[in-house]
């Protein structure tokens, strides 16, 4: 098994391996096998199209968590200019699971806040697997209030399994830190545009996700509890995670149908990690467009519309 490919992608992996083999053979013989390589390549593309046209919510969950998937700082590099990272909550620490700072988007200053996962073991630990502690949320709070003072739109990028369930996190008020941001974000006078780029894990995601527009990448997920968590409570075993993912409807398209996500941004064939540059181009275009819409709205009206949006998450009458 090629770990770069998920299990449902294995037929693609095998084909790609064959292509690679032919290429090596092609290099040290005179036989022209380019035709064969091209034939296999187009077969690989159509195979990928077929497989990706029929993904289950659980397949999408695993794509959303793919270790090669671009993270917040990758998009910061690819989309924004002149990024200055800002650190610390001024109270306790700097949480590396949330990054933030000021940058320019097509010349316009914006505040960026996002969860950050790590790719190598050391980096993963430093980023606490993208699970923020209260300091992370308080840093986000500080930056959002600053953005409001300097009239900068806020762009948040959501990618977390959830807020960290640890002893220190509880001692320092994890619940309060999240709740505080929910209340704060509901009244910010600047536009807030949030994009789920990977995993939207529960309150830990929402704490930087109360917004005027919610975007979701095609293979991102957003849910009240992880499929594994839901399965272990309701099915009494985490092995039912795929059923739980199905039942909760965690994937982007479903959330759009429910009116929670405003826009689903298409990913390159095979997922964002197959072509991060192309993904970033799509995302950038959507962000620029979204901000242009929001910036035209007077701030009082913006806050009122956001409030109506939040209170409309509906009761089943």
């Amino acid at each position, binding site marked *: 098994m090629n770990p770069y490919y998920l299990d449902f992608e294995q037929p693609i992996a095998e084909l790609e391996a064959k292509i690679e083999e032919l290429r090596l053979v092609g290099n040290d013989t005179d036989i022209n096998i380019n035709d064969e390589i091209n034939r296999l390549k187009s077969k690989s593309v159509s195979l990928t199209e077929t497989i990706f046209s029929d993904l289950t919510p659980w397949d999408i969950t695993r794509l959303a968590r793919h270790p090669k998937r671009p993270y917040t700082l990758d998009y910061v590099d690819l989309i924004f200019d002149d990024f200055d990272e800002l650190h610390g909550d001024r109270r306790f620490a700097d949480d590396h699971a949330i990054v933030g700072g000021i940058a320019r988007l097509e010349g316009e200053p914006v505040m960026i806040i996002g969860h950050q996962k790590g790719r190598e073991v050391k980096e993963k630990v430093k980023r606490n697997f993208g699970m923020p502690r209260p300091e992370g949320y308080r840093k986000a709070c500080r930056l959002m209030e600053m953005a409001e003072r300097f009239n900068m739109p806020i762009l948040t990028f959501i990618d977390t399994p959830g807020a*960290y369930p640890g002893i220190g996190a509880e*001692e320092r008020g994890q619940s309060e830190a999240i709740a505080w941001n*929910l209340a704060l974000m509901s009244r910010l006078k600047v536009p807030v545009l949030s994009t789920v780029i990977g995993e939207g894990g529960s309150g830990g995601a*929402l704490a930087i996700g109360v917004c005027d527009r919610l975007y979701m990448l095609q293979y991102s997920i957003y849910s009240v509890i992880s499929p594994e968590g839901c399965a272990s409570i309701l099915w009494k075993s985490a092995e039912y995670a795929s059923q739980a993912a199905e039942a909760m409807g965690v994937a982007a398209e479903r959330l759009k149908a429910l009116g929670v996500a405003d826009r689903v941004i298409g990913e390159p064939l095979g997922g964002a990690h197959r072509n991060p540059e192309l993904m970033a181009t799509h995302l950038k275009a959507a962000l620029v467009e979204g901000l242009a819409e929001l910036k035209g709205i007077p701030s009082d009206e913006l806050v009122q519309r956001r409030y109506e949006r939040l209170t409309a998450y509906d*009761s*089943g009458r």
Partner: protein
Amino acid sequence: MSSWLDKIMPSMIRSETHQRTTVPEGLWKKCPKCNAFLYRPELEKNQDVCPKCQHHLRISARRRLDIFLDPEERHEIGTELEPTDRLKFKDSKRYKDRLSQAQKASGEKDALVAMSGKVRGIPVVACAFEFNFMGGSMGAVVGEKFVQGVNIALERGIPLVCFSASGGARMQEAIISLMQMAKTSAALERMKQRGLPYISVMTDPVFGGVSASLAMLGDLNIAEPFALIGFAGPRVIEQTVRETLPKGFQRSEFLLEHGAIDMILHRGEMRRRIASLLAKMQNLPALEPAPEDEIVDVDEEEA
């Protein structure tokens, strides 16, 4: 003599010799903390606080509001709200079936009861979570009813008091239940902007999405003694950090120590103390002592 003995015999021994139905259901209740067997009418007179160890037992939402509010001028809010299974959620059971089961068991339509009324003459909106309704979990009806309560408080310019008891967001309503965290928090922010007091009273237990939204946003955060309150459940934390949790972890006393709450109040003094706090917060004259103050027997050292 034998009937007297019957009554004080622990129910597990009794049930071996008698049919369950021959004993009036729940005449005796075991204190979950000190294991003392408590005579129910006695316990009820003490507002379901164990007279032996002062442990605060869980009570229903309606009972909670009944103890808290003046008897006159109560009006229930959002009685028309009923949960629906918008996602057609099914695990080992259908959500629809879980709902009707919970409704039957609790006598409530969903997990929040809200009323406008008065506490010692001060107009308030008060709401309480029904823990017996799917663990007091917050879905769309809880969120909507809470916001209707806030709206009445905003219209009339009166304070809000919420008694929470909840395992968190309701998984069966998936993303819609997560959004209730944002919805209730946004509404509370309006209270704050208007300068109207919001008192959050946390009762055993408060976790997850309820803790990380409306429960922690009080101008005053109050807890009952020994209530379990936190973001993540103790078992999840233990599995994550692979350490033994400190003694008293996530109990009210622990939260007070760590600065998360303003005070711990004994159930018996909740009404008087909150009324007095609300009077101060709204610059109203001091409350007259009431006859009920005398009956409340609170051991100050315990509380």
